């Protein structure tokens, strides 16, 4: 509870920090914020061209199948890979002033969420022009995105705090995110795997999240109820556990950075 009280007291700092994250990211690049559209778009193009040849393609509209998964995945990876060093790079200020340190990872995730909603325009445009059309289930998207944010934040609490002490986390995480990309049913459909081993795939919360996005956008149904419960419980658990780890480690931040 003290987290929310603290965040409220420091809401102005949180706000300016989020703005800085959003604006600062593409600072100095010629196309600016346009990159938050272009990046995932180019990624989708590459996969859409290459993968139908490699994989047995059973989807009617592989491009849309891909795009509704890659944009949310992009949100996850940007937050995790760019946020892992968020405490470390702010070392200068951590040594000199007190403020609730949780603000740093929270800003990264909030900025990521805003960016996700901006790049979601691409998803909408693609669905519109592909003729797949929308259903009322699209209203689930903000809810799923918020669960994803809580999950990412829990992870980021742990990663950014440990990164201060062991700098390898930053590099290791890049590898794990890449590994997870192929372990999550983004490029393929999970039914490709026999039922016997499919459950392993679904230990990964991102698999459930991606499926949820795909259900509401591509298949136009409600997300699976069991999946939702699993990710909500897991996300809240990770968030609380992450916060505890962060609280424990933050006491040494000023001496370690």
């Amino acid at each position, binding site marked *: 509870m003290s987290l929310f009280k603290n965040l409220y007291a*420091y809401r*102005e700092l949180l706000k300016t920090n989020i703005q800085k994250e959003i604006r600062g990211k593409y600072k100095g690049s010629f196309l600016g914020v346009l990159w938050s559209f272009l990046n995932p778009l180019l990624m989708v193009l590459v996969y859409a061209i290459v993968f139908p040849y490699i994989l047995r393609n059973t989807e009617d509209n592989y491009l849309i199948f891909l795009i509704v998964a890659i944009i949310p995945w992009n949100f996850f990876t940007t937050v995790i890979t760019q946020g892992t060093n968020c405490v470390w790079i702010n070392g200068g200020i951590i*040594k000199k*002033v*007190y403020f609730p340190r949780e603000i740093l990872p929270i800003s990264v995730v909030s900025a990521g969420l805003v960016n996700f909603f901006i790049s979601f325009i691409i998803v909408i445009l693609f669905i519109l022009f592909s003729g797949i059309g929308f259903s009322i289930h699209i209203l689930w998207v903000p809810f799923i995105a918020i669960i994803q944010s809580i999950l990412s934040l829990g992870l980021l609490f742990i990663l950014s705090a440990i990164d201060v002490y062991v700098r*390898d986390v930053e590099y290791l995480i890049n590898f794990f995110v890449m590994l997870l990309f192929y372990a999550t049913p983004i490029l393929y459909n999970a039914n490709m795997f026999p039922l016997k081993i499919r459950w392993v795939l679904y230990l990964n919360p991102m698999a459930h999240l991606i499926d949820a996005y795909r259900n509401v956008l591509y298949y136009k149904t409600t997300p699976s109820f069991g999946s939702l419960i699993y990710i909500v419980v897991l996300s809240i658990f990770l968030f609380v556990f992450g916060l505890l780890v962060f609280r424990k480690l933050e006491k040494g931040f000023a001496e370690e950075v």
Partner: protein
Amino acid sequence: MKSNDSLYAIEVINVTKSFKIYYDKAHTLKEYLVFWKTNKNELYTALKNISLKIKKGETVGLIGVNGSGKSTLLKLMTKIIYPNSGKIITRGKLTSLLELGAGFHQDFTGRENIYFNAAIFGLTRSDIDKRIDDIIAFSELGDFIDNPVRTYSSGMYMRLAFSIAINVDADILLIDEILAVGDQHFQDKCFNKLEELKKSNKTIVIVSHDLGQIEKLCDRAIWIYEGHVQMDGSPKNVLPSYLERCR
């Protein structure tokens, strides 16, 4: 009991703080593994079981030679670092000026930095809007306020930082050896402002080597020596003994 407790703005209870001094600090996995056994460190105890209570509205000067633990004590009070044992309780909104312009963004203008810096001190936008004219006036930066701070001289930098910190309306103000910066005119102005804050019943803790300033401003002086309180009392009593020892 409770009303008695809240008499104090800052309570430091049996605090010990030590730092590990590494000869070679391991920061990566490889270094951790390679230096597993050889990662030599020495424990340096900056504060040894120190206890002190500062009443609300008191103006306290911390004195002591370099390395005696004064700055460590201030950092502990701000919650930048945490004690190894013991407890620190502060009551009320706290602002610290440990290093000038901490958190200034070089490419932002002075005005933008006021917003950013005051936000770090926990002010909201409307709070800052109310105070911004006072802050700019106090800093005497004039038109320079809309230039990026990287173009500022160190004096201007310090004036801006001090103006922000002093106008955030905190209950407790911690200041670490910074009054010495700035020209005579601005120093006097800061001094007057501190007197004014003192009269409005703020709690102020100052670390300074300017004993004249401490004598004029503070009602209490605490002499810290090698991590413990050597002497605590009115500046009239403490300062002469401190000077005696220094000679």
